[in-house]
């Protein structure tokens, strides 16, 4: 989508409402994550957090292309996916705070956000492990002849796990309705992808499985949306899976207080100059979908939503100690 007239065409196709919806989601994720970051540094958020700032266009672009029955799975870095998939921000915040009103009644925490009733499995924080699981979700859809699609989000680092290889190969072999979205943010924790992968693109690995692949601009929500739509459409139409690589960047530390000292300054500034929200804003303004006033309104309403979500979380009760024993088995009590 480098070229202006093409971009305009795409936006026309998408339409103002949907495009503004995406913009709003980008802002929601950014503001939510900024607030969580601040609260975490204050010592207010329990556990650890892996934040999504910088990568918002990936989650939003892909999730905007999904239908209701579709199912996504995320990783240790799931806040953005959860918001993009439409889980209520308040339930997400409550889960981060370990409250009974959280998406998993506080049992899961930041790294296991999810709500299957909203189309998101609990996030899988074991790098790579969600990939075969998503193949299995897609297999269920295939076996039941349901026109549903399963999407796995994972990082560049996950592409070096055995689970990636096995999961992608199986998805290809069974021609499953799945999309494997690799958010290539150039680092797995502190490790540059150049140290651990010798090919230019993770997408190149699709060839090993006879799988379709595509590469998108992970900072451009509309490009992601278009490519995801194609991949999802193909999957739904029995056309099999796609490995969709999105080139992106994380502004936040890998986790906790990580100051990203292993990243070069120029690298950071290069990517920040392509900020997904700024890019989206520019595109929307240019085609007239977004006026400064509307932008301000959206910003304000998101700020309010974030406030309320945090407030809701903080006001919510913790689960009762007795809940420790709930939710493991369906048919029996936890044996003592």
């Amino acid at each position: 989508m480098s070229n202006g007239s093409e971009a305009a065409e795409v936006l026309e196709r998408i339409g103002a409402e949907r495009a503004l919806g995406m913009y709003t989601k980008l802002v929601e994720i950014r503001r939510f994550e900024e607030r969580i970051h601040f609260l975490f540094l204050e010592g207010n958020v329990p556990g650890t957090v892996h934040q999504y700032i910088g990568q918002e266009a990936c989650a939003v672009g892909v999730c905007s292309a999904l239908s209701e029955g579709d199912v996504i799975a995320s990783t240790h870095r799931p806040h953005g996916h959860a918001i993009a998939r439409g889980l209520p921000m308040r339930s997400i915040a409550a889960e981060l705070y370990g409250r009974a009103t959280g998406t998993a009644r506080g049992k899961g925490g930041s790294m296991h956000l999810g709500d299957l009733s909203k189309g998101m499995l609990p996030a899988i924080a074991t790098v790579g492990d969600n990939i075969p699981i998503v193949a299995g979700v897609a297999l269920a859809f295939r076996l039941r002849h349901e026109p549903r699609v399963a999407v796995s989000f994972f990082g560049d680092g996950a592409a070096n796990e055995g689970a990636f290889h096995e999961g992608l190969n199986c998805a290809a072999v069974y021609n499953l309705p799945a999309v494997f979205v690799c958010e290539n943010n150039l680092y797995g924790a502190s490790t540059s992808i150049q140290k651990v992968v010798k090919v230019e693109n993770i997408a190149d690995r699709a060839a090993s499985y006879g799988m379709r692949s595509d590469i998108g601009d992970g900072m451009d929500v509309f490009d992601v949306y278009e490519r995801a739509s194609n991949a999802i459409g193909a999957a739904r139409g029995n056309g099999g899976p796609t490995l969709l690589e999105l080139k992106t960047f994380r502004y936040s530390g890998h986790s906790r207080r990580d100051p990203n000292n292993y990243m070069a300054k120029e690298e950071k500034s290069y990517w920040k100059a392509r900020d997904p929200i700024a890019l989206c804003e520019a595109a929307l303004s240019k085609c007239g979908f977004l006026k400064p006033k509307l932008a301000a309104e959206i910003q304000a309403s998101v700020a309010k939503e974030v406030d309320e979500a945090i407030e809701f979380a903080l006001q919510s009760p913790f689960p009762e100690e007795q809940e420790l024993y709930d939710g493991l088995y369906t048919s029996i009590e936890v044996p003592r």
Partner: protein
Amino acid sequence: MRMSIAEGLRFAIDGCMAEDQSVFCLGEDIGVPGGFGGAFTVTLGLESKYRDRIIDTPISEAAIFGMACGAAAMGMRPIADVQYGDFLLCAASQIVNQIAKLRYMSGGAIGLPLVMRAPVGVTGRGAQHSQNLESFFLSCPGIKIVAPSTAYDAVGLMRAAIRDPDPVLVFEHKLLYGSKGARTEKGTFDASSEIPDEYFEVPIGRAQLLRRGDHVTLVGSLLMSHFNMLAAEELAGEGIQCDVVDLRSIWPLDIELLHESVKKTGRIVIVEEGPKQGGVGAEIASGIAELIPDYLLAPIVRVAAPNTPAPFSPPLERAYVPRPSAIARRVRDLMSAS
């Protein structure tokens, strides 16, 4: 009808697949025409009946169990298997980190009605095809573990496992299958049973008393239950009467039934095919020692393999696995010391 364990498992799987479209099988070489029906013939022929639901996989154990996990989360009832229990370890993260934890991590929102099958037992194949994995997975909250030692139990426990809403790991024993044809196993033990015409389940979490006696409790599972019965017979000739308990379920462990038995006998010998260290026997011994120590007339005895991998050489292998005669000897020693 009389069935072997392999036939019994097939019968149970077939019955459940016929009843419920959501049941399907996933594994290596399980449905290739002209092939094996899995490593030990359990699914033989089912592929022609359920073409789409007997799914041959690449040699990708992590994917097999990962896919089973994902499909089960969507309400399917997968039956995933490995050719030898040892290869569960190739999928250990999927089993322990994902399958066992997913429901809990979701706050109880997700159900995972899936079955995992794994053949175990020390059977002439050396260290990598012989391990008894029961004790590994006993450390893993979130899955149930069963181990049928007869065809009756195989049918009933497999049916219960498939219909169970939670993940169930089924350990099967290579020497008990009674597999036929090119897959016949040397040194096989007859574990066949008369199988009722009507469907039935054997409840998960309940052990079974195989034989009554007042002097000592002998407990084990799979092949060891057969060995315990042989030992008990030998001992009966000498006037030592054994309560022989077959665990049937490794988890939940039916410690109540064992308590009842030990309250009567005052003595327990726990027999395990795998190494003693960190074994299932340790959990049983603890469950007795913690709760009913006062009933013990003699120390708890664990009979198990040495704390080594399984050797290949036949005489070493014979010395490795507890034999009926060795079990009987330990019981005799125990009786004469108390």
